[in-house]
């Protein structure tokens, strides 16, 4: 009888908790129609300058200084340029890729359209989809001009003109990045027919309400802000089969779903790369000491043994290395 009473109380508590959650849950629908997006309101960008301005998040800094500083030190802040290597790879993708393929329709940079770049820019600059094709041409020329002047400046350190041009192009390239508005607006809603489109005047995070900003006056909850799919949009599943000529860069979200969660894992990207690591918006991976420490168990055992080679005993050291990947995806991956 006593046991029954305990079960009854537990059931009552569960019901009370459930109704409490229902009563306080925010309404779904983090945005409304496509016509309310940043791109729809401003029209497509017709230059790199316009594209940078369209997704300018500098007004966030005043209130979110710490997050900005963390982000500034992250690879997201240099998603096209990287350390220079990423930008060079984009050029390779142009020259060895769509500029050399027979049916791409591209012979010179003047033929480049936004769709040609999306193999890279789907993730390195998703907002390029909100620009006219001539912006793709401008981006291609900027990459090539940066590289040309970087080479000249490297060859002749006294070539100030080339160094200045290199720096100017580099500044443009680093201004094109994955900033606050990319994650907290443009990519904050994956299921747009269900939840609505991200709106031009709204930042998406964990709360609903007013937002103290001249341009982004509202806050709304993004239902995926703490879910792995937010990151999985770019740190993806393998080949981007939606493209006319599929590309493949990141495979991490595929590994996360089919090798980690399929085996019982349940942590999210954000839990490890932002919270437990203490990295916040810096969101690093293999290069960060804390992430390295969290990533795996590593154990080595070594002993002397022998190998019988015909009639000769050959002494040897046997070294056994055990590793257990504790992350939510294959290592390495990206």
């Amino acid at each position: 009888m006593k046991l029954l009473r305990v079960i009854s109380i537990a059931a009552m508590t569960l019901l009370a908790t459930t109704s409490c959650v229902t009563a306080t849950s925010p309404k779904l629908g983090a945005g409304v129609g496509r016509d309310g997006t940043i791109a729809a309101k401003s029209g497509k960008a017709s230059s790199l300058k316009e594209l940078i301005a369209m997704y300018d998040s500098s007004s966030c800094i005043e209130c979110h200084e710490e997050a900005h500083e963390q982000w500034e030190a992250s690879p997201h802040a240099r998603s096209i340029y990287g350390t220079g290597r990423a930008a060079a790879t984009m050029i390779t993708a142009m020259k060895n890729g769509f500029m050399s393929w027979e049916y791409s329709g591209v012979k010179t940079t003047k033929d480049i359209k936004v769709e040609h770049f999306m193999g890279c820019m789907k993730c390195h600059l998703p907002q390029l989809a909100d620009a006219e094709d001539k912006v793709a041409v401008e981006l291609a020329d900027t990459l090539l001009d940066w590289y040309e002047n970087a080479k000249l400046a490297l060859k002749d350190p006294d070539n100030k003109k080339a160094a200045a041009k290199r720096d100017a192009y580099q500044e443009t390239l680093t201004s094109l990045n994955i900033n606050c508005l990319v994650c907290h607006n443009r990519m904050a809603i994956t299921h747009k027919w269900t939840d609505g489109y991200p709106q031009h005047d709204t930042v998406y995070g964990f709360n609903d309400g007013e937002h103290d900003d001249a341009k982004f006056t509202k806050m709304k909850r993004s239902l995926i802000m703490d879910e792995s799919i937010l990151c999985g949009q770019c740190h993806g599943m393998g080949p981007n089969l939606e493209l006319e000529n599929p590309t493949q860069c990141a495979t991490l979200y595929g590994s996360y779903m089919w090798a980690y969660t399929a085996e019982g894992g349940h942590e999210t990207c954000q839990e490890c790369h932002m919270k437990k690591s203490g990295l916040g918006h810096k969101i690093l991976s293999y290069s960060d000491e804390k992430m390295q420490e969290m990533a795996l168990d590593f154990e080595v055992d070594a002993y002397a043994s022998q190998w019988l080679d015909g009639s000769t005993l050959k002494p040897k050291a046997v070294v056994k290395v055990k590793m257990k990947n504790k992350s939510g995806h294959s290592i390495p991956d990206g």
Partner: protein
Amino acid sequence: MPTPQLMARGNNMGRGPYEKSSIVEDTGLPPGKEVEERFDIFFPVEELDNGGQVAEEREMTVTVQLWYKPFGTMSSAALWREWQETVSLDKRSKPTTYPSGNPE
């Protein structure tokens, strides 16, 4: 990291993302699973006049390093773990007169 398949056909590896569309194999560490790698390292030996062999050194210092190589080379590589120990041929040996091996 999966070894990407060139244009999703054959067994060649694609280099740039623009030419990768599948995987040939995945040599990465799978999440949640223990992987063991075994290495057998022979002691260098000297040839003796009688045709026999003897180890040049009785000890071998083994260093194991785990590197993360984002580009497959040491460029931008990060050292994740390092382990070192000396393996001795005499460490656990006991005196014996029993002839090992097959005498000629």
